[in-house]
């Protein structure tokens, strides 16, 4: 009897323990569901009949300096259909036929798309305009609703494509200014939360909560659409005429640092983007700031300005050109291997003598030479605000003491062995035009929102060279232009100054690319009171490579058209007639 009682007690306790443990497990699970993960399950329960949709505010427009839109957002509509509403094949085909008649597309593909989907709703058509959306709404097709979205429109076509960049399907900037100014253009997204019925339609009397989106601000650029178009046309013509691989033109106002035009080739079609094609990725970058090159003889302006500013030479200082300069065991010759005898400093520029530039740099000395190079802004980004801006490459005795040799300064003096971006070169030219004071280049003029209007201000930099030295150098640049045949450069009504360049192209493995050059021209106009600094750079022209032949004509036509457009009075009174 006693044994049986003990066995009964043991079994009883075992059953009680199992039941107790099971109860604890159930209680624990309930605690997890009801307390620990309450928020998550409550959210999931809410989502079965409540929908939260993001609402995007209107993206700000990008305008040129006169208010003409270069990129703007247009509202569009996407057509969505609820899967369960198209269960009846015949009715679905009828609805698809009606929708495709308005929005385009294959009706059979629409029906198939809806039949094969396993999500609640599927998008049948995108980017409908207002009239198309109204037509679709009139159809009152079962389970079909319209969702407003927007897409980017470019009223000026491909103008300044690389500078502007483009946006993705989510309306966020991917490249160019669209990406750089995302915080300003994009605004703030909002949400709308509403209850819906079994068909997915919003309940008129249901809960509705809306956090309104904030539209993006409009950005007024310093770019002038007329000058930009002119620059792009001249660039296209030069590239085509000389069968070049590409090129860059930059037009800056030297007193304000405002960039009036920034064009690069090759470019892409902004209105027909194909992001799936990886081979086109290289076309999207803004070569004016991302690509570095050896500037060649236009850099002689920098060398001459340093010598003038230090008072070491004047325009008429004599120097004897034997045709060769020796530096650290290396011999430097002129581009045409000429020996010119006694020459002035002005002639060093007008004849573009490499030996003369090396002599000038030797007078200045490496420490001061590179100090001037940095003061002009080479070796560091210009601060234009454009992403991907390269700093350039300046090798000095300080930053590369092991590899730097005296011959480096000699070659740097005529723009070889030193890498710059086109924008850096144009900015340095603008400093010379601005009486020696450097100025930060800028692309944004104003930010305009519904409530405010912020204007950006000119940011003057340091005085690179004295105003007197800058004026003297400008006069020497005028002499350089006087020596260029009028077939290539003859600006009617204005006296202009400039410098040509024909540079070798460095390869990644060291050395230079055979029979390949960069032809360039940097100029200032008018010389008396500069209103424009222009850089024209043509990459790898075939045939004649000289900057005078390839790049100077583009400068001529741009300046001759832009100065009157900017209401700059001509220098030569002979062709001015008084209005009686």
């Amino acid at each position, binding site marked *: 009897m006693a044994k049986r009682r003990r066995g009964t007690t043991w079994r009883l306790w075992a059953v009680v323990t199992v039941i107790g443990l099971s109860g604890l497990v159930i209680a624990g699970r309930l605690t997890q569901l009801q307390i620990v993960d309450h928020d998550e399950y409550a959210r999931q329960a809410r989502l079965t009949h409540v929908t939260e949709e993001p609402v995007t505010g*209107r993206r700000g427009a990008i*305008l040129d300096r*006169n*208010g*003409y*839109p270069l990129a*703007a*957002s*247009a*509202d569009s509509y996407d057509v969505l259909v609820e899967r369960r509403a198209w269960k009846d094949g015949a009715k679905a085909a009828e609805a698809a036929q009606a929708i495709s008649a308005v929005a385009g597309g294959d009706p059979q593909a629409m029906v198939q798309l809806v039949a094969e989907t396993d999500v609640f709703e599927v998008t049948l058509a995108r980017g409908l*305009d*207002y009239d198309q*959306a*109204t037509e679709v709404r009139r159809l009152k097709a079962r389970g079909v609703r319209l969702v*407003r979205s927007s897409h980017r*429109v470019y*009223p*000026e*076509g491909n*103008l300044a494509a690389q500078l502007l960049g483009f946006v993705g399907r989510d309306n966020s900037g991917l490249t160019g200014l669209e990406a750089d100014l995302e915080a300003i253009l994009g605004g703030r997204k909002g949400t709308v939360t509403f209850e819906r019925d079994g068909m997915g339609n*919003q309940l*008129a*009397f249901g809960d509705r909560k809306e956090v309104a989106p904030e539209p993006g601000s*409009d950005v*007024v650029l310093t770019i002038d*659409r*007329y000058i930009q*178009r002119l620059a792009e046309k001249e660039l296209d013509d030069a590239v085509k005429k000389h069968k070049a691989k590409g090129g860059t033109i930059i037009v800056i106002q030297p007193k304000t640092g405002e960039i009036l035009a920034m064009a690069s080739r090759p470019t892409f079609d902004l209105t027909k983007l194909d992001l799936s094609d990886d081979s086109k990725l290289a076309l999207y970058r803004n070569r004016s700031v991302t690509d570095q090159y050896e500037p060649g003889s236009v850099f002689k302006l920098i060398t001459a300005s340093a010598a003038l500013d230090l008072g070491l030479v004047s325009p008429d200082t004599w120097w004897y050109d034997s045709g060769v300069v020796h530096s650290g065991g290396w011999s430097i010759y002129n581009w045409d291997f000429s020996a010119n005898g006694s020459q002035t400093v002005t002639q060093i520029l007008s004849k573009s003598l490499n030996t003369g530039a090396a002599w000038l740099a030797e007078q200045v000395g490496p420490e001061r030479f590179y100090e001037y190079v940095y003061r002009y802004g080479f070796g560091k980004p210009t601060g234009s605000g454009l992403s991907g801006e390269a700093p350039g490459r300046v090798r000095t005795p300080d930053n590369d003491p092991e590899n730097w040799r005296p011959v480096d300064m000699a070659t740097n003096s005529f723009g070889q062995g030193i890498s710059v971006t086109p924008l850096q070169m144009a900015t340095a030219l603008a400093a010379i035009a601005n009486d020696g004071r450097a100025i930060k280049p800028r692309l944004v003029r104003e930010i*305009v929102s519904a409530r*405010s*209007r912020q204007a950006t201000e000119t940011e003057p930099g340091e005085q690179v060279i004295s105003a007197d030295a800058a004026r003297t150098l400008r006069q020497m640049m005028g002499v350089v232009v006087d020596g260029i045949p009028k077939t290539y450069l003859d600006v*009617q*009504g204005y006296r202009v100054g400039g410098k040509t360049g024909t540079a070798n192209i460095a390869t990644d493995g060291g050395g230079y690319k055979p029979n390949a050059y960069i032809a360039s021209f940097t100029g200032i106009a008018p010389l008396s009171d500069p209103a424009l600094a222009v850089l024209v750079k043509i990459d790898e022209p075939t045939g004649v490579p000289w900057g005078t032949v390839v790049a100077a004509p583009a400068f001529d036509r741009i300046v*001759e058209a832009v100065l*009157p457009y900017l*209401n700059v*009075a*001509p220098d030569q009174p002979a*062709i*001015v*007639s*008084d*209005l009686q």
Partner: protein
Amino acid sequence: MATVRKSQPASAALDLLRSPSLPVLLILCAVAIGVAALLPLVQSSDLTATNGNIQRLERDSADWRARLHEMELDVARMSSLERVEKEARERLSMAPPTETHYISVDEPPQQESRLPSRYLPPPVEEPRAGSSLWDKLFGWIPLP
């Protein structure tokens, strides 16, 4: 012999039940309750309709705004340099000038902004000098 007769409340209720006006009263009560019950329904229905109207009007407003933006962009497209040049060349048979004539004039260049008005802040009305009550009042006093 006087007799005192105690009133019977139950019989009063029975009297009421037997009263011929009872059905009328009951119908009136039922109608009142029905009307009272209908009121929130009518209010709810009205509210639903109003809510629906608001949503429809908001949608219409957004559609018209979209239409407005579309027309603004049409204007921008029409004034694009490429289109202007095409029209000038093809429709008006114009050609770029071959030479430039400069004419000096005394008029200053146009300085005012050419931005469309929607990008400009609303104009601020400057108070006219001497137009306030105090100005008029002190206007009589010959101040130095």
